[in-house]
């Protein structure tokens, strides 16, 4: 039976307005709903398919504080078997990678699914760091994943196309849309939600890890200039503006 770990980053819902507090040093969580990072959601559904096809154990893990538990419960309601929360505010990718790597070392996972990037910190760092810490194969920007026995065949999106790669388990992937389609995403049903309450959610107290980076201050993008409207019967003016004013054509 395949043993799968899905790494789940809890991020502000994509419709969130982004504001900061504490002199712009902290993200303002007021009124913000946290969700499973979209790239991880594709990975979680892919893991569910493995489970349906060949039977598998699916664990989910998050490095974060208690408020993330509702997101982990959602992953359990979608069908994950066990959840682990490493009780540490995620402030540095290396720290997150190291804590997840510690967990992986103590278990025996065949497949570890993370996302290509988290939509809050946008690091594209955690899965690659885990792979190097544990010396296991890593494929990112993964848009297709098939496993047959011990053999993995995966498609990676590259600039201008797709590359098909193969290797042996164990592997960690950085997944994205394509692993499954948007319309395939599993949504928790009533039964799943009921069951999720009984499923184990283990809180792990982590050791201190030396961080390598800090985030100090946030800025909102500068306000845009007023838009210039051009009449649809006067497209020459648009071309003139793009050429002489914006200098982009």
């Amino acid at each position, binding site marked *: 039976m395949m043993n799968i770990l899905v790494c789940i980053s809890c991020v502000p819902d994509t419709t969130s307005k982004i504001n900061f507090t504490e002199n712009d040093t902290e993200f303002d969580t007021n009124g913000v709903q946290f969700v499973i990072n979209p790239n991880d959601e594709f990975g979680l559904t892919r893991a569910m398919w493995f489970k349906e096809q060949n039977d598998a154990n699916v664990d989910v893990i998050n490095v974060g504080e208690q408020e993330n538990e509702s997101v982990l419960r959602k992953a359990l309601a979608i069908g994950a078997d066990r959840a682990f929360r490493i009780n540490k505010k995620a402030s540095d990718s290396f720290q997150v990678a190291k804590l997840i790597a510690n967990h992986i070392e103590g278990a025996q996972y065949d497949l570890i699914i993370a996302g290509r990037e988290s939509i809050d910190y946008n690091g594209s760092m955690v899965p690659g760091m885990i792979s190097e810490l544990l010396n296991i194969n890593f494929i990112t920007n993964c848009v297709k994943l098939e496993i047959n026995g011990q053999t993995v065949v995966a498609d990676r999106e590259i600039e201008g196309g*797709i590359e098909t790669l193969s290797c042996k388990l164990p592997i960690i992937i950085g997944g994205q*849309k394509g692993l499954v389609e948007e319309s395939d995403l599993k949504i928790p049903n009533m039964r799943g939600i009921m069951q999720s309450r009984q499923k184990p959610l283990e809180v792990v107290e982590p050791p201190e890890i030396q961080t390598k980076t*800090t985030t*100090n201050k946030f800025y909102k993008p500068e306000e845009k200039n007023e838009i210039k409207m051009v009449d649809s019967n006067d497209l020459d003016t648009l071309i003139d503006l793009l050429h002489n004013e914006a200098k982009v054509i």
Partner: protein
Amino acid sequence: MSILAYIESKNKKPKKNSFEVVSYAKELSKKLSTELIVLTINIDNHSNLEKYGPNKIISVNDIALNNFDAKTYADVVSQVATKFSISHIVLGGGVDSKYMAPMLSVKLDAGYLSNVVELPSNVEPFTVKRTSFSNKSFCDASILSDNKIISLASNSFSTIENPSNPEIIDFQVKASNSNIKQNSIDLVQGKVTIADADVVVSAGRGLKGPENWSIIEDLAETLGAATACSKPVSDLGWRPHSEHVGQTGKPVSTNLYIAIGISGAIQHLAGVSSSKVKVVINSDPEAPFFKAADYGVVGDAFEVVPELNEKIKAFKAENN
């Protein structure tokens, strides 16, 4: 303590963003009063890199490195970094560099920051501005470790000429064998990719169906642009996933982004906001995108786009 700029290659030539990467690294080396070393892998002609000021170019040539493999490449870069006492590594924002960078950071025990948009505002601690929340904001972040790696957000830094006469060092590496095998590669021929494009022509659900995309492709061809689309368009299968841009798709930071029949939902805007100039064509004057754009045309895409295409063609014919 030196700066290493690693640049990606395509068909044995530096990729387009290389000059941006080298220019940034040169400015950084001035700030830190140290030398700039540029690392090339399987590039046969360095002359156009010399314009941007490297003190040395380390040239690695090895057929074992013909295909990009992240682990093998990380290994090569780390051998070079160790051999030449590198303290700071600068990478571009291409998919290969971003694949390799986290592995490299663990190998070299280096702090790593991605999507950097400016030169460091401070050297001690080393502090740079980067994007966060999918371009909905920026942040200042610091690297605390001795060794440092940064990758640049694309199109965030302009090229600066700084002609030099670098020493070229042919460097032999031990290319490790990868456990990952490349079975095949499938490239769309003759199309500009979103990552490489100066102009992106993007269309949304307002186009009504995939059969109507020829007006978009024609305009893109006239402008030498890449084509892109909103998320529902790729979800519906009208266009390939690789064209989906936005917060959950690809980020776009081009000089010119033309959005046609796209309403301008917050998730879409997040991914394209760092493009320099945005033009919106939409039949609904209330479409939210107009609030986030530089130029707008209210009109029916099926009329405006073909007409605009003809006019730009004529304009280009006259001005070239």
